[in-house]
């Protein structure tokens, strides 16, 4: 499977209005709704597999991987309209992340540059914000030294408090929808929230007041992946969907994002297996679960889209006029 450098999604569908670079340098990047929704023609429907293995890094980014930048751009152009508000929500650094801050990038640290895409989102004509989820008060991450903290998160990224939002202290087991802190309804009002989830640190999902962050028709996009530790699968999907399901959010789609080239084709594998030369049998004995090298090469990330159910499932004619990407 080969890919050429990808054009920006939506590039062939519309021409973005010129934006003043000075306004983009301000802390909050808000773009006015310049294009009427009715004037945008509907594009191709997206697929549940996005091949971004060869995506180039976005301009002006240092940490954000190319595939993740392309994923953010595609999410924004597919699920929002110009003028909508988008939040790039960096997860709190997990203890594992901080312990391996200089290690390999195959976990939450791989999502470290999420907030760097704020400029790109703003250039797409959306109101862009970036924030970091608050760690738990007893999170060991709070007790680590500041140098590690500085290495793992951007200094310019605001906490939720700057947006007028606060994490919920505890989930509400007796209610599908949590109470608002002030009882005055949602205050975040983001149409799309893009965040990431380390499969080994999912607790912060329950501490975040998604009800306040999202608009009633807002979408939550979570980039995550399954991980294998000591040969055992750590799949965050069940915990993710259970936690957010108790908050009234339902899974709308699951999309696989290819982040690295696929190493082998099945035909080559079959041929090699027939010849008995290139696919040695691994040690799959039951006692081999502690084998250091897992027999799997993870080349994709999972993108889970969640939202609230529409109040009326049959009356939605405006959707036909919504722009979509070309993936």
């Amino acid at each position, binding site marked *: 499977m080969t890919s050429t450098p990808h054009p920006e999604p939506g590039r062939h569908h519309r021409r973005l209005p010129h934006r003043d670079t000075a306004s983009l340098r301000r802390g909050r990047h808000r773009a006015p709704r310049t294009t009427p929704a009715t004037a945008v023609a509907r594009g191709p429907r997206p697929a549940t597999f996005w091949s971004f293995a060869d995506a180039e890094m976005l301009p002006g980014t240092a940490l954000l991987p190319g595939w993740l930048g392309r994923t953010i751009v595609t999410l924004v152009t597919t699920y929002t309209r110009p003028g909508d508000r988008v939040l790039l929500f960096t997860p709190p650094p997990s203890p594992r992340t901080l312990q391996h801050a200089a290690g390999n990038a195959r976990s939450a640290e791989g999502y470290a540059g999420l907030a760097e895409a704020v400029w790109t989102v703003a250039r797409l004509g959306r109101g862009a914000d970036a924030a970091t989820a608050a760690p738990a008060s007893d999170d060991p991450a709070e007790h680590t030294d500041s140098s590690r903290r500085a290495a793992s998160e951007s200094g310019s990224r605001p906490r939720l408090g700057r947006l007028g939002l606060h994490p919920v202290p505890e989930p509400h087991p007796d209610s599908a929808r949590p109470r608002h802190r002030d009882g005055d309804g949602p205050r975040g009002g983001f149409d799309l929230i893009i965040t990431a989830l380390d499969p080994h640190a999912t607790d912060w999902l329950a501490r975040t007041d998604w009800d306040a962050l999202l608009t009633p028709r807002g979408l939550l996009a979570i980039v995550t992946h399954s991980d294998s530790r000591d*040969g055992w699968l750590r799949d965050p999907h069940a915990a993710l969907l259970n936690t957010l399901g108790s908050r009234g959010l339902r899974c709308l789609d699951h999309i696989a994002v290819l982040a690295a080239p696929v190493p082998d084709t*099945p035909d080559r594998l079959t041929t090699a297996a027939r010849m008995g030369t290139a696919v040695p049998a691994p040690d799959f004995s039951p006692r081999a679960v502690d084998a250091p090298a897992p027999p799997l090469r993870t080349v994709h990330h999972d993108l889970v889209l969640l939202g609230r159910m529409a109040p009326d499932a049959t009356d939605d004619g405006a959707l036909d006029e919504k722009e979509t990407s070309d993936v």
Partner: protein
Amino acid sequence: MSKRTGTQRPLPAGERSEGPVVSSVWPTGTDSLTTQLTEGGYHDATGADPALMAPAIARYAIAALTRPGDVVLDPDCGAGTTIVEALRAGRHAIGLTGQRRWWRLARANVTATKARGVFVDGMVLILDRRPGTAVAAATAGLTGRIDLLLTTLRPGPVGDLDGALERLHGLLAQYRPLLRPGGHVVITSAPQRHPVRYDLLDVPSRIAAVATAAGLAPVARCVALTATVRRGRTYTRAALAQRRAAARSERALGHPVALPAHHTALVLRADPDAADPALNQPLPALHAPPEPHRPGRGTRPDSAAA
């Protein structure tokens, strides 16, 4: 069926010693399902199996997780694509199905495969999946001999997910003792939406829960493509019915809904904590599944060689 002497074979000289490169994304959507069935020489009615595992997906799983001479079992084989692909790859294969229609079709596909001179080593059985089959298989010396249990989630008796998972759990509990220590289980599933709310159901996680209860441990959650990817673009080959279903979901949810381009392949293996006790204990009591009575069911043979 040759006797397996160990879990490891000596590697030829000069062969790499590292493990296999099993990707989390299986590039199994290069050809359409129709093309795969046509070029594979399958019976024309094979495509009528609604829960068919694509031959390319079966081929990838077999090639990645087994070696020539290994034994592959599909306890719910339907039209038999898993069995045929195992035979073509030089693996022994056993397919089970509880429906006479699929039993005949699977036999026809296996017979056609043999008639084409495809290399087949050993005996292939298409067994009836009624109670007692597992006991018969154990009696035949298959306990601990299966290297790969490869199957797909099929609809339950009334087409519901709960019924499908209940049936899958029964199959896994019944045939788990046949799996060799360290053997693998691959269960594929297509994306499913709630029939009323249209939200996406987390079928793989529920399969993992069912398999864990049967003494299996998930080791990987893979993406088996059903779409072609060229130059970074995904071509889903979605049928009109799939596009209509996506449009219905889109209207209900109020957001764009993606066309399905992949199935989920859950890879599991025998739980080391549960393997030895399960193998040392007698087979669990087998009860008749709560299915409606099928006329003529009692007239079928217990097993037949293809």
